[in-house]
């Protein structure tokens, strides 16, 4: 997709991730490059959360695959993977990682807001703080529904409405005050220069249902007591033991 076809946020985030990719992989690559699939900020094993289940023989699409840490592990478990990312620099990190792991699957350079893949071609579409966070849900949820086969499901971990309302713009961290309104939450131009998205709980529910997706689960992740992460400070982990900073939606195509 040429960059002139992108929405404003897709262009901004493509540039952001092209700038950030090397540093991101240097900072977090080891944390998220574990031998088994793990979710989110605190890298909680899929074997514990059991969101995706058995992927062997399934057609699986990862939205915002970055250096393809997740996709590589799922391919090794027998999934027919496709990895999508909006940043070509992130995908340049994915290719040598795939070669090193000895797996081969298509990588698609695209925004999740308009995906150049056919309708009803996946059993599972998922993201782990991926495109779901950096693309507009009003656009990508529609795409996910289109890409899923009937009976297939989508699962994605990301931020939460509490993360949105509890973030203090003056200190650039979270505390126990209500800083930002709940109503109207949607698009956030972060101090780092990216554009991120979050919706009220009810808006997510309506958006899924409008797109023919039945709500199976909202798994709110409490930071583990012994949380280890390269993404958050100790104080932020303590906040996330009290209020949700990460959640995983799971929805199924009717």
């Amino acid at each position, binding site marked *: 997709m040429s960059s002139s076809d992108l929405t404003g946020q897709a262009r901004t985030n493509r540039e952001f991730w092209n700038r950030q990719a090397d540093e991101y992989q240097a900072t977090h690559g080891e944390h998220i490059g574990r031998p088994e699939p793990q979710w989110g900020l605190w890298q909680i094993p899929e074997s514990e959360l059991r969101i995706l289940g058995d992927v062997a023989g399934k057609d699986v699409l990862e939205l915002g695959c970055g250096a393809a840490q997740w996709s590589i592990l799922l391919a090794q478990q027998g999934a027919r993977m496709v990895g999508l990312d909006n940043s070509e620099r992130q995908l340049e990190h994915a290719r040598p990682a795939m070669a090193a792991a000895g797996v081969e699957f298509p990588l698609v350079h695209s925004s999740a807001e308009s995906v150049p893949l056919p309708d009803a071609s996946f059993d599972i579409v998922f993201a782990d703080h991926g495109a779901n966070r950096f693309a507009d849900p009003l656009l990508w949820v529609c795409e996910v529904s289109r890409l899923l086969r009937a009976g297939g499901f989508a699962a994605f971990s990301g931020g939460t409405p509490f993360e949105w309302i*509890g973030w203090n713009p003056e200190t650039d961290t979270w505390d126990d005050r209500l800083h930002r309104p*709940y109503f109207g939450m949607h698009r956030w131009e972060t101090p780092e220069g990216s554009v991120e998205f979050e919706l009220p709980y009810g808006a997510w529910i309506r958006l899924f249902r409008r797109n023919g997706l039945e709500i199976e689960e909202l798994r*709110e992740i409490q930071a583990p007591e012994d949380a280890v992460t390269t993404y958050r400070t100790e104080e932020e982990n303590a906040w996330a033991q009290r209020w949700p900073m990460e959640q995983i939606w799971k929805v199924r195509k009717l």
Partner: protein
Amino acid sequence: MTLSQHAQTNREVWAKNAAEFREPGKRNWAQPEITWGIWHLPESEIGALPVLAGKDVVELGCGTAYISSWLARRGANVVGVDLSPEQLATARELQAEHGIEFPLIEASAEDVPLPAASFDLVISEYGASIWADPYLWIPEAARLLRPGGELVFLTNGLILELAWSVESERVGETLVYDYFGYHRLEDPKDGSIVFQLPYGEWIRLFRANGLEVEDLIELQPPEGADPGRWDFVSNEWARKWPVEEIWKARKRA
């Protein structure tokens, strides 16, 4: 009727509170329009309810039964259930005054003496939806519904509860309570107990009871709207964060 500990406590509290709810009950019965919550937001704008004519409806925690009266006037076959005989006495008075009759049953929503699969709609507004334990009343609501029937209830906004000050009896802008594990809040003054759950927990509870999630409508009052006698929240707060939210779920066919 065997009552849970909190149901007994809440029943005693409502015995004292009922007199205070007589006048608002009277006003609500006289109101032609169906509205939601403390700002009386019109159902014609919210759209939370299905077509009512000919439907079998049970209201859990009906209090003075004004909601039931609105639904009865639109052709629904309504049954009101409430734990408080004092509240039901007001409801009976208002039934007589308005010439609208429907059955009123004294019972907790946690254990309803009505047959399974006998209703198309289970509704609650500031009723069982806040005063009964969801782990007990949601299974009862699911049991009462016919396949395809709907559960619609209004409850306190979760953010409101987490930012609630029991001392000032007002909502603040500080999160006082933890989200994880949130379940009940006891009023230290009168000992009454209200319930609320994390969003994900509601969804798990619905699905475990054969209910599909249909909607969650967070209510936002218009600018300058007057909450009347309710002074626990400012319009400014309520414009930013939800004071009330309506869940909708449907029993699997």
